């Protein structure tokens, strides 16, 4: 047998986020709690497939005329149009003027990667500014795409809120034309979002410096419970007539996690530019996966194009968002009741699936070891993984960590 040409390959470290679930699965404790990965759980701690999604799936299965042919490189056309409408608004002038190109991609990750590869090839500025902190996978996505990554201040640990002046300063000193990654809503991992006024200031600053916005929208509808409200930041930018990129994911808001459904939209100055940009996006996609998977996109399109199903979806979505908001309140109340030292109001001020607790790595390790609580070491907890039954256990764990661990 010949020697392997890959004999020197060392084992890669576990992905910090997905590795949490791996560790959780190994744990035998009956009180273990998985607050790691951002996947929604019901009050019973179970994954949820939305009713409207099941309905759509059944429709697809029962439709004997459906085939499994390759989609076009850009994906399912209906899906693309409907996704653009969802994020930019049905009456968006950018859409009506055909200035938007939308391509189906593999959920948020895939949309970001395709967009970044396009920028690395065709955009004059190869630096992207990402908020500090951000989703763990962001830096690698952009680096592998060929961009260089810098960061801008975002989270203020002392207030557990937005470091707005730091943000303005850092974006203000970015080179003209630089790309800026913005979380459209429900910032991951902190749950800290700019206010409407702050978004307007950010917009003005960015446009005056010619900074290119690249939105990551993974939680539309999931943050506030309202699809339009959660898209306000993006629409603000599109309304001024300027250009931007937007990566959309249906993993959370439609519960389609494993189906990998997402879309990348690029808003351009003119329809002609949008057409040319789309043709170049195809050249990025073809050598990556040729064309996107059909199943999940078909489910989304089925739901979005039917008025009743759309309404049903928005109701189920609001219910998920409401449950999370309720968990926030319950956890906050539980910590107050225990007299846990510190100000925990950020738990109810932050928005979306995650809470950046402010706990340090020692405290997190303590909670894992002593209380079988699984979370990422940056202190992020997925509120979606909590239930009324498990809130007390978590509150106990946090209380113990804060009062005993460093």
């Amino acid at each position: 047998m010949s020697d392997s040409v890959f004999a020197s390959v060392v084992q890669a470290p576990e992905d910090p986020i997905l590795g949490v679930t791996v560790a959780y699965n190994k744990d035998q404790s009956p009180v273990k709690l998985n607050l790691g990965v951002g996947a929604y759980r019901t009050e019973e701690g179970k994954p949820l497939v939305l009713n409207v999604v099941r309905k759509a799936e059944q429709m697809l299965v029962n439709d004997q005329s459906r085939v499994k042919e390759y989609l076009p490189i850009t994906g399912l056309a209906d899906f693309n149009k409907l996704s653009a409408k969802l994020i930019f608004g049905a009456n968006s002038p950018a859409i009506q003027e055909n200035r938007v190109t939308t391509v189906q991609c593999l959920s948020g990750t895939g949309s970001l990667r395709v967009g970044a590869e396009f920028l690395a090839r065709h955009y004059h500025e190869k630096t992207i500014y990402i908020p500090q902190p951000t989703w763990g996978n962001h830096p690698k996505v952009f680096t592998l795409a060929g961009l260089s990554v810098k960061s801008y201040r975002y989270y203020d640990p002392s207030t557990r809120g937005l470091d707005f002046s730091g943000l303005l300063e850092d974006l203000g000193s970015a080179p003209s034309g630089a790309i800026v990654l913005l979380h459209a809503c429900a910032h991951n991992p902190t749950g800290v979002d700019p206010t409407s006024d702050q978004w307007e200031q950010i917009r003005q600053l960015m446009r005056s410096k010619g900074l290119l916005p690249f939105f990551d929208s993974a939680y539309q509808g999931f943050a506030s419970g309202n699809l339009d409200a959660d898209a306000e930041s993006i629409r603000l930018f599109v309304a001024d007539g300027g250009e931007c990129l937007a990566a959309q994911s249906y993993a959370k808001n439609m519960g389609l996690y494993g189906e990998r459904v997402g879309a990348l939209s690029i808003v351009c100055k003119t329809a002609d530019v949008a057409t040319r940009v789309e043709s170049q996006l195809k050249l990025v996609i073809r050598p990556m996966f040729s064309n996107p998977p059909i199943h999940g996109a078909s489910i989304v399109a089925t739901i979005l194009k039917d008025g009743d199903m759309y309404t049903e979806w928005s109701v189920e979505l609001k219910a998920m968002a409401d449950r999370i908001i309720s968990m926030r309140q319950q956890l906050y109340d539980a910590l107050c009741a225990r007299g846990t030292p510190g100000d925990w109001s950020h738990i109810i001020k932050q928005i979306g699936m995650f809470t950046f607790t402010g706990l340090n790595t020692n405290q997190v390790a303590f909670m894992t070891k002593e209380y079988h609580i699984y979370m990422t070491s940056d202190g992020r907890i997925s509120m979606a993984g909590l239930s009324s039954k498990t809130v007390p256990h978590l509150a106990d764990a946090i209380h113990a960590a804060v009062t005993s661990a460093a």
Partner: protein
Amino acid sequence: MAQLLRSGCSGRVLCSGAVGAARSMSTAWWRHVEPAAKDPILGVTEAFLADPSPNKVNVGVGAYRDDNGKPVVLECVREAERRIAGNLNMEYLPMGGSVNMVEETLKLAYGENSDLLKDKRIAAVQALSGTGACRLFADFQKRFSPDSQIYIPVPTWANHHNIWRDAHVPQRTFHYYHPQSRGLDFASMMDDIKNAPNGSFFLLHACAHNPTGVDPSEEQWREISHQFKVKGHFAFFDMAYQGFASGDPERDAKSIRIFLEDGHLIGCAQSYAKNMGLYGQRVGCLSVVCEDEKQAVAVKSQLQQLARPMYSNPPVHGALIVSTILGDPDLKKLWLKEVKGMADRIIGMRTALRENLEKLGSPLSWEHVTKQIGMFCYSGMTPEQVDRLTKEYHIYMTRNGRISMAGVTTGNVGYLANAIHEVTKSG
């Protein structure tokens, strides 16, 4: 973590530090973007769809059609889908994909009783069909054999070149197709293998070479494998047509089995697009044979590191269909029967096309139509002849003269043969 910004001018004219309207808002970022060339293969279908002619024939893209020219969803797939729908959740798969699906898929390529499987020496991850598997391997090759190049056969599936290029792996080519005989240029191929530097990486089509349909014989595969041993070359097999070529998946994997018998540590891309008709589901697998289990664990972890920033984890639906089918003996039997059915129909069309051309009194030899194997026939027609076929007869194919036999039916084979005869009869 990345640096914070240093404020101040970088020397750029526009960087004044002031928040003024230094740049006009009407600056369009993408004005310089050129329209990209249409994909040669997928562009054919686009053109076909736009053609209003009632006689139009699509023998372009390699997607199977039944004898009525209709796409097919296999019975075993429909049944699997019925079982899946409404049952399971849609949670993220692990980064490496569905463990069940991967296990079953490896059995197909490596053999049910393969020692490699028993000894856990194969690093394998679910991939986005064949394209995704090749791309993941190319990225892995770039990262862990950074000085290597890839030798690609001439001709090959056009997207192979794009894949390794986007992975930034330098490419070389090796002789493969022999235009005069419309067969394998074995002597030149062996020369190229011998002359390549020791330890070179080669892309091989396991069976049903795309676009030529020309495969080495078993004897020739043995010689190739032997020469690879002598040179210490790395063999990467792209197997997109297992079962589809001869109708027998075991037989179609022969080339791979020969290399494994000889002790090669190969890489392999597998796709279910054609042989399970799961095209749009994007289901495939990338595997890399390692020296031992520990190495396989390491390699798999690194493959996952490459998948994570590309798409995080692969789509679940198609994988569930595959594992449902392959995990159920009855469904698997049904699948094998249906695959054979597809392969047989294609073999039947090859015979019909050749017979029709010979009956028309074509001065040329069409023996290659039945000698070649798999979905494609490399007709030998020139781009100009192909253009005539399209313009005059509304027959759509790629300009390299590749005919997708899956698009040929008893209903159109006569029309097709006649058209080919008309544009080629003058030589």
